[in-house]
């Protein structure tokens, strides 16, 4: 799968409280969550984000709470991909589990600016900054995780496993 989008770039330690503040956690509806995505770090995000856009973050993206509302809000806002230098571990699991595409690639993050247009080949991990024509390659996920991703998330992979056994 090839993804292309415009980049919204943020720094290190983007926490789940700024991705979706707790005051909005009294709903589980992705569209209502998306209406407040990134609100406390970037008030213009909701009005400027377009379907297919890409979020680029630094170290420890998604740190803090376990709230799955954070990747749900990002996905609900139409963002197609999150690229970071590293992810906080619960956000990492949640993104894989709900089928939000992510990759870790510190070099690419350093080579991408806010507003750049970036193309990502999700299968090979090749990341192309179309604005600068620079190219980077992320480490692909281990086979264990690729199986969950290919199944369309954790629950789908469990259902598939049951089918195979049953």
């Amino acid at each position: 799968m090839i993804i292309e989008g415009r980049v919204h770039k943020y720094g290190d330690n983007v926490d789940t409280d700024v991705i979706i503040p707790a005051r909005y956690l009294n709903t589980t509806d992705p569209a209502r969550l998306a209406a407040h995505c990134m609100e406390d770090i970037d008030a213009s995000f909701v009005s400027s984000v377009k379907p297919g856009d890409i979020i680029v973050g630094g170290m420890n993206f998604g740190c803090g709470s376990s709230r799955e509302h954070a990747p749900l809000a990002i996905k609900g806002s139409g963002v197609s991909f999150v690229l970071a230098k590293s992810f906080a571990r619960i956000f990492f699991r949640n993104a894989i589990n709900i089928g939000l595409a992510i990759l870790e690639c510190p070099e690419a993050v350093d080579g991408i600016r806010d507003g750049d247009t970036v193309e990502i080949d999700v299968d090979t991990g090749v990341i192309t900054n179309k604005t600068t024509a620079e190219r980077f390659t992320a480490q692909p996920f281990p086979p264990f995780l690729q199986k969950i991703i290919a199944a369309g998330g954790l629950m789908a992979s469990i259902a598939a496993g049951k089918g195979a056994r049953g």
Partner: protein
Amino acid sequence: MGMTITQKIIARHAGLASVKAGQFVECALDLVLGNDITAPIAIEEFEKCGAGRVFDPAKVALVPDHFTPNKDIAAATQCARMRRFARSHDIVNYFEVGQMGIEHALLPEMGLVVSGDAVIGADSHTCTYGALGAFSTGVGSTDMAAGMATGRCWFKVPAAFNFRLTGRPGPYVGGKDVILHIIGLIGVDGALYRSMEFSGEGVGALTMDDRFTIANMAIEAGAKNGIFPVDEQTLAYVREHSDRSPVTEAADSDAEYEKTFSIDLTQIPLTVAYPHLPSNTRPVAEARDVPIDQVVIGSCTNGRFSDLRAAADVLRGRRVAKGVRAIIIPATQRIYLKAMKEGLLETFVEAGCAVSTPTCGPCLGGHMGILAAGERAVATTNRNFVGRMGHVESEVYLAGPAVAAASAVAGRIASPDEL
């Protein structure tokens, strides 16, 4: 190569003789936890996949503690959803308002977690139970749904850091100062994906409540879990609270630790974390002239009885400074009752504090103490991110209960010695 404490617990729950860092395994779970914010999504996922019944109604715990007592209609609706699910699945460990406490204080108190367990919870502070020598870690709602359906969870076996503790904490210094000091040392992603394992003779100088506070904030250093070795104190705690038998796992002598940090507890000062990261720490002695509007003493980090006692010892015979709102939140009903019987609540009310029923409330900016623009709080909670306790232009300073109480009296960040 030997195994760490965490690796041994994971291996046993995966049915393997040994595991090593980086390996993917699937573990049987002793407990799956969710709260009123995370469980509704898990329930949706659980029902969508047609799982039928939960794997074991005695091994799922549902605790409505975040936006409860219901703060608004939307929160009430989420709680109602969880309550219906609990009833229809005969969930043994569902705790209604009135019996409810903050989940990570409640579950050990109810004896639902013992040494050697493997536990997941759809709440990042699930790592708290590492104090008991259990492997416990926070996950998201979908992992919780899968856990409820199958009783299993996948893990990447973590590498580990060893924190070798020596000495004894000084006056007023507690678990909060120790963990803030460590997070200040290694950073908010300093232990990313790893176990933080504590060892050394200094462990014996820490109370169980200190250990709960320290393990609770392992996530604030990015860790998968924080875990303590099991000693006499742990076993006494488990005996007092649970009918279940603990399993004691000790690290092998040749266990692999990526790094070992030597921490002399004697040298740790009363510590405060400035906005907007828990790693932004300073000794309280350097934090003069920071006027405050609110103090919160409570949360899964520091709402236990010894925390309340530490606060009451500072507040007894004193008054909260004019213009400061001090909010005290016992973490569970049992703690609330004990604080009442021992006169702590009276001390708080006489000092001019508000005392609340158990709730996570203000810690995550939910309710019961939200900050306005420009306001500043000293809180015994666990996060001081932008907007965490309210307005995006408010500030949270993290500290232990003695410092929080002293700050309430002084009207600025202060140590108890200054009063």
